[in-house]
């Protein structure tokens, strides 16, 4: 059992919730690195060991998901507004899923966390220190597993996947290149630089993702094992 700790100052109501039994494991990394495949695998493995798992991430929340979608359809959304809308959305996930899950003793597998949100916001011009403060409501995970890959390998995977280049993952809103490919390359390189700069700040455990999926999975299980055996 451990105490819930936060990156910044938590509201009074969460400061004194006492010991929690659950664990928060985050899998971070760029789009297309294979996070969801790995998380599905981890879930099966954890459940076979008898642990109850909740998967969460940057899926749209009950509170703000619809509002963000509507707001993005117009073309008037300012950048600070969008950063805060995303933060609202994630706070709803934290307060509604992550914290209750941890209190009930679940293992929470988070597909991305505040680091993705911070990286994307900074690439879009947010003050790096301010956006970190905004996300101060987030609980500090027990483990952050960062799936690291180079931009050229990422391009190769994106082409080979059925999805291909898409608007947001290519950062086309920033118009970083003449077409989706140029923009994707520049945008993802910038995002990766942000992740790199967060490695030691947030204590990421770096997993080399430029390997066959089963080798990556072995490393992930090993890392999680060490967290769970502390319990």
């Amino acid at each position, binding site marked *: 059992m451990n105490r819930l700790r936060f990156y*910044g*100052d*938590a*509201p*009074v*109501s969460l400061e004194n919730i006492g010991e929690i039994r659950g664990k928060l494991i985050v899998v971070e990394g760029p789009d297309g690195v294979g996070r969801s495949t790995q998380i599905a695998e981890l879930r099966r493995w954890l459940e076979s060991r008898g642990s109850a798992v909740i998967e969460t991430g940057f899926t749209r929340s*009950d*509170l*703000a998901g*619809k*509002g963000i979608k*509507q*707001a993005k359809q*117009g073309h*008037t*959304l*300012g*950048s*600070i*507004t969008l*950063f*805060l*809308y995303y*933060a*609202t959305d994630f*706070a*709803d996930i*934290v*307060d*509604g899923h992550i914290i209750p899950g941890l209190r009930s003793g679940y293992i929470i597998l988070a597909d991305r966390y505040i680091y993705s949100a911070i990286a994307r916001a900074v690439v879009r011009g947010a*003050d790096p220190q*301010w956006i970190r*403060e*905004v996300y*101060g*409501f987030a609980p500090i995970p027990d483990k952050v597993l960062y799936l690291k890959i180079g931009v050229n390998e990422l391009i190769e995977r994106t082409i080979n996947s059925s999805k291909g280049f898409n608007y947001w993952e290519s950062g086309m809103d920033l118009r970083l290149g003449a077409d989706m490919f140029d923009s994707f390359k520049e945008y993802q390189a910038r995002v990766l630089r942000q992740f790199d700069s967060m490695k030691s700040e947030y204590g990421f455990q770096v997993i080399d993702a430029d390997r066959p999926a089963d080798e990556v999975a072995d490393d992930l299980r090993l890392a999680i094992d060490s967290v769970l055996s502390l319990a």
Partner: protein
Amino acid sequence: MSLNGLSDQNYPGRLFCVEGIDGSGKSTQIALLHEWLKSEGYAVKFSEWNSSPLVKNTTSRGKKKHLLTPTTFSLIHATDFADRTEHEIIPYLKAGAVVLCDRYCYTAFARDVARGVSPRWVRQLYRFAAMPTVAFYFRVPLEVALDRIVMGRPDLKFYEAGLDIGLSGDPMESFKLFQARIVAEYEKMTGEFNFTVMDATRTIEDQQRQMRNIVKKHMPRRSRLHSAAKTESKSA
């Protein structure tokens, strides 16, 4: 960034905001100020708390379904404020207009802290806010404000009464306790943010006269604001 964390850019426009608890009479005063400034020929933009069309549906959904926690309550209002800052406040200040705000970020500092969020965190959250020229705080004894409100609308809403934080099961009792906390936060801020404190028990006319005198002092001499904006952009 200024000492208070609010963004202290030198825009040619002027920004005046009114703060205080419900029933302090601040909305009446800013409406009178608005009329006067217009009649004086100034370009005026009015922006009201919690009114962004992009965020409104989410906020009312959260309130109606009681989905909001202290953190999400704070963030959704900051999102609303950000949209108005980016669309209604900064562009108009740049253009040299007078921007009037019924409630500003201090409302969040008072309410959200009364609701239990960290004072430091919520101040950081609003660091993008433009620094007001003058922030008027309408100080009123709690009983006077409560009398005015209770007469007007007896139906207290869930979050308005602070029922989400469990101060009391009785809506009226909860509302009173919650408002008392908000007043305490405002009082703490008067020095921190250099509020111009208005005695809201005085007559409406007296208060308005005082407000206009203060506002006048902050207007550029002789030239109207819009012409001042033109000169400043030429020399820049």
